[in-house]
């Protein structure tokens, strides 16, 4: 089937304004009759719940954490992009749009990206009004910095904790609505199923993580803002609780899963230290503004202390290969270049899986104080984890799974193919194409929540009768029974291996075969091996405790079971896409100099997968992508 993204036609500059006018409105007096269920309270979910509550809808908000403020948006460090052009350096909505389309390697829908760039400026205003303490210059105006993939300074920041400050802004807006009674909050509550009635999303089934109670909440629309899925690699920069579960359950109820193979590997993370490790820690890519990335030219220098390796014996490979963008080359390119250097035997640190990020030149030029002011918290974090002082010797970094560009397929209204199911933020596939630029995730989360869904959800609800489905509906009861059945199965296996052992095995297979470099052979092997490990999981996993109690092992087991199913789809998508683009690098498809070789003639589309049930191959639907404003071109950062 050919999918229609329902993007508006006509001049792109007017597309969102025109569309907003054409959307149906819900009468203010009727809004409270509609119940909207918002799952996830990160930037997208919290801003959506707050804005919808403020408009007068009856909102219920759910998060698995003990407080909405702990969603993983909190961990974003570097900043948020906006086309304000405050520095007068040539930025514009068009340039942000252009950079994002190009940065995503031409795999995003133009109209969605334009809208994102257009509302980016409103986000900054909104956050300032909320009391977000953005960095300011000495005259009191907002300060900006540069980020990878752009040649203008358009990134607004709050020290190294921009995500935290933006999330707390959205969290306070949400808290205000909770007080006002327009939003009801359900913390420590995990969504485990989507309830679909007559083809429309009308509820969710959740587990209360404290008592173990499984129940259904019904509503007139469901908004999923449940983040990304790169914990499928086991080790990633995501929080421990991040999972594919909510969107996977929706996919199993018929929502199409788009471009699952577009995953982002972030170049500046702290390398893995040992097998026991539970997660990888990211350091903001803003470090690349002042840090220079290098490896030794000669393999035999790799074990020498870095300060003993002479300037002539260092390979500043990003500056060498990409003189225009240098150390600020986009994430996918920087990550792959690090892998190449390490594959070439020139990596440093444990296992030879690391490259240097060196601040010596900047410290000499600007002084240690300036570097400390800009990145002090990151240097502290590095020292706490590695016991090394980044001011005295270069940091060691290595790429790590960080973000998923893929997600549930949505149209221009952010509605999935299931009417009434909206998907926001990292959980959808929309604006980042095959690679997300730095400081654009925060922008998308807040754009979707503050400035898109409040308009587009009205277009759906205006035509829907409120309160159609009651909690005793047969579909609700069936959903509860299904969730209970799965839980019973997990608790009943009583095998020999722990959940973590299984997830580690799956993650390692995914990282080695479906990670930074993928080939037909590695992907075929992964697709063969995943079902075998999955089968063993269901025969030999050991989940301690019971269902009707606080049980973290059971929570993990459920998420792991979903990763076991989803990982196969990810690998299949990667195998079908016979091209390299953005974060998806197929080793067979590259230019002689190692650059990604895109195939626009055959793959200029969104791949949206429809699940067909256990044991059946998923069906591929395509949404062709048209580029009318930015011309398809080979992406070059040289």
């Amino acid at each position, binding site marked *: 089937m050919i999918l229609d993204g329902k993007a508006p036609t006509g001049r792109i500059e007017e597309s969102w304004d025109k569309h907003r006018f054409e959307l149906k409105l819900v009468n203010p007096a009727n809004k409270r009759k509609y119940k909207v269920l918002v799952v996830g309270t990160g930037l997208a979910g919290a801003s959506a719940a707050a804005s919808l509550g403020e408009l007068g809808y009856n909102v219920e908000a759910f998060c698995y954490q003990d*407080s909405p403020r702990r969603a993983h948006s909190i961990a974003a460090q570097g900043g948020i992009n906006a086309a304000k052009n405050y520095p007068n350096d040539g930025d514009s909505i068009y340039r942000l749009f252009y950079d994002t389309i190009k940065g995503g390697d031409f795999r995003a829908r133009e109209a969605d990206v334009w809208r994102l760039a257009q509302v980016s400026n409103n986000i900054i205003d909104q956050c300032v009004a909320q009391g977000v303490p953005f960095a300011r210059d000495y005259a009191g105006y907002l300060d900006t910095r540069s980020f990878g993939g752009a040649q203008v300074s358009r990134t607004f920041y*709050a020290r190294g904790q921009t995500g*935290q400050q933006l999330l707390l802004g959205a*969290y*306070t*807006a949400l808290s*205000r609505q909770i*007080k006002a009674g327009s939003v009801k909050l359900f913390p420590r509550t995990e969504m485990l199923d989507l309830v679909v009635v007559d083809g429309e999303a009308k509820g969710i089934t959740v587990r209360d993580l404290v008592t173990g109670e499984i129940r259904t909440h019904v509503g007139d629309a469901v908004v999923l803002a449940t983040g990304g899925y790169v914990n499928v690699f086991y080790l990633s920069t995501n929080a421990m609780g991040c999972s594919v579960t909510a969107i996977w359950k929706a996919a199993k109820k018929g929502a199409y899963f788009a471009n699952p193979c577009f995953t982002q590997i972030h170049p500046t993370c702290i390398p893995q230290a040992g097998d026991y490790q539970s997660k990888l820690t*990211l350091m903001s890519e803003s470090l690349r503004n002042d840090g220079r990335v290098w490896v030794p030219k000669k393999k035999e220098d790799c074990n020498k202390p870095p300060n003993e390796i002479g300037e002539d014996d260092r390979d500043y490979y990003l500056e060498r290969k990409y003189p225009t963008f240098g150390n600020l080359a986009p994430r996918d390119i920087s990550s792959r270049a690090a892998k190449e250097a390490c594959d070439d035997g020139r990596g440093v640190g444990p296992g030879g899986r690391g490259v240097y990020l060196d601040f010596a030149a900047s410290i000499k030029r600007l002084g240690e104080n300036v570097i400390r002011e800009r990145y002090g918290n990151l240097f502290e974090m590095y020292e706490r*984890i590695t016991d090394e002082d980044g001011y005295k010797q270069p940091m060691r970094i290595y790429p790590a799974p960080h973000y998923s560009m893929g997600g549930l397929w949505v149209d221009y209204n952010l509605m999935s193919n299931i009417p009434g199911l909206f998907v926001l933020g990292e959980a959808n596939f929309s604006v980042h194409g095959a690679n997300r630029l730095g400081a654009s995730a925060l922008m998308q989360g807040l754009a979707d929540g503050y400035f898109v869904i409040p308009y587009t959800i009205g277009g759906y609800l205006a035509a829907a009768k409120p309160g159609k489905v009651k909690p005793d509906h047969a579909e609700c009861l069936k959903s509860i029974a299904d969730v209970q059945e799965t839980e019973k199965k997990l608790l009943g296996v009583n095998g020999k291996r722990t959940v973590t052992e299984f997830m580690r095995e799956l993650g390692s297979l995914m990282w080695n075969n479906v990670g930074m470099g993928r080939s037909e052979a590695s992907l075929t092997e992964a697709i063969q091996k995943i079902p075998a490990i999955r089968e063993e999981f269901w025969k030999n996993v050991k989940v301690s405790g019971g269902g009707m109690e606080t049980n973290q092992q059971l929570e993990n087991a459920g998420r792991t079971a979903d990763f076991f199913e989803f990982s196969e789809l990810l690998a299949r998508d990667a195998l079908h896409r016979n091209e390299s683009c953005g974060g998806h690098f197929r080793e067979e498809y590259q230019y002689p100099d190692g650059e990604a070789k895109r195939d626009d003639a055959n793959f200029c589309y969104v791949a949206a997968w429809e699940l067909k049930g256990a044991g059946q191959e998923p069906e591929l639907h395509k949404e062709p992508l048209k580029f009318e404003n930015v011309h398809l071109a080979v992406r070059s950062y040289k």
Partner: protein
Amino acid sequence: MSAQASGHGTMNIKLIVWRQAGPDKPGNFETYEAKGITPHHSFLEMLDVVNEDLIKQGKDPITFDHDCREGICGTCSAVVNGVPHGGQKRTTLCQLHMRKFKDGDSIYLEPWRARAFPIIRDLMVDRGALDRLIQAAGWISCHTGGVPDGNSTPIAKRDADYAMDAAECIGCGACVAACPNGAAMLFGGAKVAQYAALPQGQVEAPERVAAMIQAMAENGFGNCSNHYECQAACPKGIDVKFITRLNREFYKALVLDKVGATPPKKS
């Protein structure tokens, strides 16, 4: 805190952990052995090792709150040898590493203990009271949309920096756990001070502080008696000067006759 561990050998640690099956169940200390721990293990990774062991023995693993494991979400929370987060300066429990301990050490692990934080299970507590303080009035009432340009009001760098110092709070509740009175003054003070320092926060400043102070009492938090344990325990280095600011804002609200007044409702 134990002396710096030296070398890169592995260590065995004795863990004495508070176990409590549920809010209304009795609790007690149990002793476990953490074997083969390296200096590079984070504290929570050490707990992971112990839990994997417990599961294999057919015992219930230790329930503890954790999520980002990079010191920013504020989820992890346990008292280590009497000190919330374990006592390394500006460090959450998830960022504490085992190189700070040595082979043969005994470590006592307990949950946050405060009247406002009922125990859910083992080391996991209910910190909903902190959310309720924010819900009471910890915001600036601006609607989505219809706000002025971000640069329309210049804010002095010193004020923006001061607000940011306060805003770094991660809401973990260590300040409450460390306080002999179980007070949330540092947590509340940080929020009040952040907004009081900014022009956007002025309009509602008196109502905000009054409502938050009232909510502290209603949610079982104690009062401040200047022990400053909160500042010592805070993994983000939040300064007690923000409590001073909270007090000053509260007196201003008293003078303006705003104490006891209802905070702004949704309009």
